[in-house]
């Protein structure tokens, strides 16, 4: 639609430039009855004007198109910000409504479990089964509450205490959380950690949540038999963490949509579609950036986290993060 518009505009501009340039020449030719040499010169000037008007119009159309595309991009970003803000308030509402009944389930089952401890095993035939059922309920309520807390983390931008974080240690610890899953699916974790990375003041728990989420996603992307490589590096101001998987990569048309909340390629019930949206929001609130690309040889995806190296706790970063965190 826009392209057609610009094409028409280009034609109009060419015509306008041409008429403006050629008309005076034509008038001169009519008024002064020129010699054949002058006619040749005038013709040459007309050709020059044609070329110039063509290039000028192309130049303007290109400028218009670029401005237009910038405006579209800005519109999209604005729409995204608004969407994230409304998700934030929705999340706050959901957590409020769900956490209270979850608390009641947990309290009731906790009480039941306690009282079961008083029972005589000889009298209650299925005592162990009841106890296990209580443990099961508690486990699943805690699972549900983790989701609501993640939503809560999404709704509010920072809670945070900044501590001195060694990124290499954080990565190794996070790897240990997922080792069993990797082993079970025959996926090898390869760590390439730059020695001597400086510690940075940041919110370690939230950064770990991001790294855990990205590593877990990488395992899901590989599914079976493959590699997930995590490398760390630094430049003057930033620490960089790359999570590289040997999965199928991200389809080109999804490279932007993966950041949208509730976007998921996982099976129903396996993913909330919030992981990447929350991760990006967290990294931004820490003053960094989270990006995704495919490996150049087409054998998997690379997620890159960049966080600033802060020697002291930077409160202004958090404040900026709060403003930008919804993107």
């Amino acid at each position, binding site marked *: 639609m826009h392209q057609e518009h610009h094409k028409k505009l280009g034609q109009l501009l060419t015509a306008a430039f041409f008429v403006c340039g050629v008309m005076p020449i034509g008038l001169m030719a009519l008024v002064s009855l020129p010699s054949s040499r002058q006619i040749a010169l005038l013709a040459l000037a007309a050709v020059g004007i044609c070329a110039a008007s063509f290039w000028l119009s192309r130049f303007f159309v290109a400028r218009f198109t670029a401005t237009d595309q910038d405006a579209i991009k800005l519109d999209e970003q604005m729409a995204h910000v608004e969407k994230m803000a409304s998700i934030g308030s929705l999340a706050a509402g959901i*957590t409020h409504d769900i956490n*209270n009944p979850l608390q009641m389930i947990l309290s009731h089952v906790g009480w039941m479990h*306690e009282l079961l401890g008083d029972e005589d095993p000889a009298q209650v035939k299925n005592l162990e089964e009841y106890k296990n059922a209580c443990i099961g309920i508690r486990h699943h309520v805690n699972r549900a509450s983790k989701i609501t*807390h993640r939503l*809560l983390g999404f709704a509010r931008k920072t809670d945070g205490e900044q501590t001195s974080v060694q990124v290499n240690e954080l990565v190794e610890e996070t790897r240990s959380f997922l080792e069993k899953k990797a082993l079970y699916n025959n996926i090898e974790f390869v760590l390439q950690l730059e020695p001597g990375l400086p510690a940075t003041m940041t919110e370690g728990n939230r950064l770990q949540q991001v790294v855990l989420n990205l590593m877990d996603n990488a395992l899901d992307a590989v599914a079976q038999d493959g590699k997930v490589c995590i490398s760390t590096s630094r430049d003057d101001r930033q620490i960089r963490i790359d999570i590289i998987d040997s999965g199928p990569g991200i389809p080109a048309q999804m490279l932007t949509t993966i950041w949208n909340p509730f976007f998921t390629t996982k099976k129903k019930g396996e993913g909330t579609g919030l992981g990447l949206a929350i991760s990006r929001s967290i990294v931004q609130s820490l003053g960094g950036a989270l990006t995704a690309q495919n490996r150049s040889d087409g054998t998997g995806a690379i997620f890159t986290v960049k966080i600033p190296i802060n020697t002291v706790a930077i409160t202004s970063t958090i404040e900026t993060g709060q403003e930008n965190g919804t993107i």
Partner: protein
Amino acid sequence: MARYSVLIVDDEEDFREITTKQLIRRDVNCESAPDGDSALKMINVQHYDVVLLDVKMPGKDGIETLREIKRIAPMTEVIMLTGHATVESGINGIKYGAFDYLMKPMDMEPLMEKLDAAYERKRIQQEKIESAQSKNNLARPTKG
């Protein structure tokens, strides 16, 4: 004898009822109030070591109630309970003198840990004040 006393202030009746039972079972003296105003009335006539206070309740909200409690009974420790996206209120509560905050849903273990820790702080503070007072009393006659 009970180890210490707790007042639960929460508008969820079920929560008050079960938590009271659970605390009594753990040798903690426990009573409850459905809202801020009734809690304040109870605190006016009786002493509690720790108050477990919901941030969001009908009527007087948690922060207001907290400020009143701290005015009436400054030694009483308060733990804020947040059941929704107002962790900020919990943190805000700490600014107004709450001991800590807990996010719902929570298991009994973390609740007990926080309650014990809150009581411990209260006990130590109380001891300090008492020893300061007794030193003061001892110091007076020698001065004179």
